[in-house]
């Protein structure tokens, strides 16, 4: 039994689900769509609540060795790095977005909040990337005021058989009145 008293006067009704989805999708689209390099690779993001999955649809220009054929190692590294940065940026914006302080309607590439910068990024190639779609997810393992650590993993046909994993450190954007940091 989860019954509650009926809402009294002055109680705020929950936000319609379509409004919530629209706001989140608009922020994500602004975050991703503003970066030319993400478009160049063709990466798109699938969102379920706050969970993001990066999708890299296969395309011939992503190949390294065409004889095997295999995805270019640089593409794999870039895919994981993009996944990590978007995950971190998304987490940074989440509270502002949900509270409504971030106006999704006014977000465009020129008006995005400042995003984290990569300090270092390390990629392990576990097996060769096949000429198929690839997927990746990132997990923030530590986040602080100035630095964050993020892990990411990419797979293709089998979620349990990743073809690459990565970990990286990121410099968080400086906040107003923070004294400022530059990378």
């Amino acid at each position, binding site marked *: 039994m989860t019954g509650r008293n009926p809402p009294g006067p002055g109680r705020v009704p929950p936000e319609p689900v379509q409004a919530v989805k629209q706001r989140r999708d608009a922020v994500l689209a602004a975050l991703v769509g503003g970066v030319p390099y993400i478009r160049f690779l063709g990466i798109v993001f699938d969102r379920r609540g706050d969970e993001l999955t990066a999708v890299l649809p296969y395309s011939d220009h992503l190949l*390294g060795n065409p004889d095997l054929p295999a995805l270019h190692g640089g593409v794999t590294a870039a895919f994981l790095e993009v996944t990590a940065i978007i995950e971190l940026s998304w987490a940074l914006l989440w509270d502002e977005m949900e509270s409504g302080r971030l106006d999704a309607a006014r977000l465009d590439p020129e008006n995005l909040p400042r995003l984290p910068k990569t300090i270092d990024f390390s990629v392990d190639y576990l097996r060769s990337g096949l000429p198929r779609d690839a997927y990746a997810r990132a997990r923030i393992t530590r986040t602080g005021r100035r630095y964050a650590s993020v892990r990411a993993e990419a797979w293709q046909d089998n979620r349990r058989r990743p073809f690459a994993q990565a970990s990286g450190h990121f410099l968080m954007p400086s906040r107003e009145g923070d004294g400022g940091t530059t990378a």
Partner: protein
Amino acid sequence: MPEMDRSTAEGFIAALPHARALGLRVEAIGQGRATLSMGWDARLVGDPRTGVIHGGAVSALMDTCGGTAVYSLPEAEGTATIDLRIDYMRPATPGQRITATADCYHITRAVVFVRAVATDEDSSRPVATATGAFTIDRKGEP
């Protein structure tokens, strides 16, 4: 065995679809050493407000450069990246060409250890450095 010449290296790069897509150019090639460059390109930008190239594109340049350095070894027939770590020192200046040089600094029977440095037109301040381990397939071995 003869040293790899520039046209062989250019052929190696031209055979990689993604290296072509990035517009990579061979600048110099020696035994176990390669210099490749990537011109500034609006498609590779990571921050549209500044025009700075995305770190991922620099990673792709570093990885290709490391692989080319391994492939330039006289005994190498093929190679693949085992791991690659990139340190980003500063954003590359927008509009400038990024040049990376990779060196094979230690070679074992199955693994080559590679270091690489990338700069823009100010070659005194690195944009990024990388260290990686690459496999080596040796000529005449299965």
